């Protein structure tokens, strides 16, 4: 190069040094607010709740250590028992139905359907609604006198009776129906994305080998979507354990406490019944349940990523 024009950047020395020092700290400075917010808002508060669960706190926090009293009380509490059983029923059915419906819809949509975009939009819109809205609507649809029952009677099926919403044995299933309606489209979207990621050469190769389409899906494609399956279960289980809004909107835990879920139990005892210690203990058990799911999941995820 004929003449080198030295750019001015190289001239300044001392101020640059100072700026460089700042530059080095900038990344940490920028994430610091989040670090503080999350450190307190999640981790410190988690510990705080843990501490409360070992106290006899009622309306106000009292820091007297009572050991596992609250947990023992919880185990003897009928309402908590009901809530746990309900979570089992609700969670199990909810996850199962969402998976079946989601997978079937995804596979069907993957068959080069012309209106795929529109259908996908329709299947997924409930996910954009608040659970309170969903609950309100389904509460109306399942209304024992004016809802579905009346519709069937009007349409000539006069013996049809549907009183699940006010039947303490069946009310939990109405919540399953509404929740599945809301979330199954999400599973569809997950699996459709997964299906689109499958190498089409595999399908062609299997066809050349003479496999039928259902067989290809069942024994080649679905097994390859295991990771999608796991993350779907993970997210659905997470929704189930946290489920609160839907119950509040549809049954508020009733009739009686027949549709209580742990989240509802925690809310009621902590904020309306003044049993903070018991509420904290129930929250800690919910955390435990999520951890029991999360730790193996994250472990397998991270182990998988190590191999990259």
């Amino acid at each position, binding site marked *: 190069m004929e003449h080198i024009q030295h750019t001015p950047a190289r001239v300044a020395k001392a101020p640059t040094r100072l700026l460089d020092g700042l*530059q080095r700290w*900038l*990344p940490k400075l920028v*994430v610091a607010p989040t670090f503080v917010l999350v450190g307190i808002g999640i981790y410190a508060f988690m510990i705080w709740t843990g501490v409360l669960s070992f106290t006899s706190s009622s309306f106000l926090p009292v820091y007297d250590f009572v050991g596992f009293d609250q947990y023992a009380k919880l185990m003897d509490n009928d309402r908590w028992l009901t809530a746990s059983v309900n979570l089992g029923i609700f969670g199990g059915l909810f996850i199962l139905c969402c998976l079946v419906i989601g997978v079937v819809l995804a596979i069907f949509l993957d068959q080069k359907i012309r209106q795929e975009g529109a259908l996908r939009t329709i299947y997924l819109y409930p996910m954009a609604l608040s659970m309170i809205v969903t609950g309100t609507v389904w509460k*109306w649809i399942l209304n024992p006198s004016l809802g579905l029952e009346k519709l069937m009677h009007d349409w000539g099926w006069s013996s049809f009776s549907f009183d699940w919403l006010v039947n303490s044995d069946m009310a939990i299933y109405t919540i399953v129906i509404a929740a599945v309606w809301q979330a199954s*489209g999400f599973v569809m979207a997950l699996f459709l994305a997964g299906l689109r990621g499958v190498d089409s050469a595999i399908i062609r190769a299997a066809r050349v080998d003479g496999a039928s389409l259902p067989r290809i899906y069942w024994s080649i494609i679905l097994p390859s979507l295991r990771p999608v399956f796991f993350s779907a279960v993970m997210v659905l289980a997470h929704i189930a354990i946290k489920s609160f809004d839907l119950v509040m909107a549809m049954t508020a835990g009733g009739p009686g406490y027949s549709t209580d879920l742990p989240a509802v139990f925690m809310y009621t005892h902590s904020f309306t019944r003044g049993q903070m210690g018991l509420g904290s203990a129930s*929250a800690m058990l919910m*955390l435990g349940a999520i951890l029991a799911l999360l730790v193996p999941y994250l472990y397998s995820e991270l182990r998988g990523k190590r191999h990259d």
Partner: protein
Amino acid sequence: MTERSHSGLRPSRIAIHAVLILAALVYLIPLFIMLITSFKTPMDIRTGNLMALPSEWTTLGWSKAWSEACTGVQCDGIRGYFWNSFKMTVPAVLISTLLGAFNGYVLSKWKFRGSDLFFGMLLFGCFVPFQVVLLPMAATLGKLGLANTTSGLVLVHVVYGVAFTTLFFRNYYVAIPDALVKAARLDGAGFFTIFFRILLPMSTPIFMVSLIWQFTQIWNDFLFGVVFASGDSQPITVALNNLVNTSTGVKEYNVDMAAAMIAALPTLVVYIVAGKYFIRGLTAGSIKG
């Protein structure tokens, strides 16, 4: 070969279409019922049935829901709460998205010792059931003088939303080659210049994802609203629930449905206008997580 198998599959293709269309109807019917009920008169509701169109279309339910319906003791309709939700959602969405963008930038392009651990902490934060932080948060908001205020709710939504927004941006920026940042550093650009001049102009899609996801989440939230707000500061979801579950007086289902529609409209509109980004947000959070 392919052609023949296609024509052979004709009946099964019809079955597939039938199932898909039936499913679409099942998903749509609740919306349809909500809509027609909201335009019915109370009389119509008692005499007609769920699927019957209104014999007389009226917006009475809508106006009553908006300005007269009782949500607990007060009977001013849900309009105040509707604006509450906006006042809470807009700042919370903007702040959490902005924080998430910067965090994602640092956690992907300016890693430091411990940054991966920090990211792991955030990731875990996405999964924690909020029940476990409710009581301490309520106490803290009280101490800060933010209990039952919109600002308090904004703070809460930022704290528990920033993990998701960080995840979005971090995963987006990780896919952008590091060489771009290196090139910019050699060109003389610093931390903020690289972000604002190089990465930000490329970030429109992920900003849309984050804004829309956060908007939907925060607008639709009920738990934080019901726990941390009371009376005048409640968001729309809490007001809707109060309205629907108020045990006083005659049930007016047209008002309930109109109120539900009002509460649902903002997120529905966002979904219809920018559904693509909403779906990306949904899948990004769970697949790449």
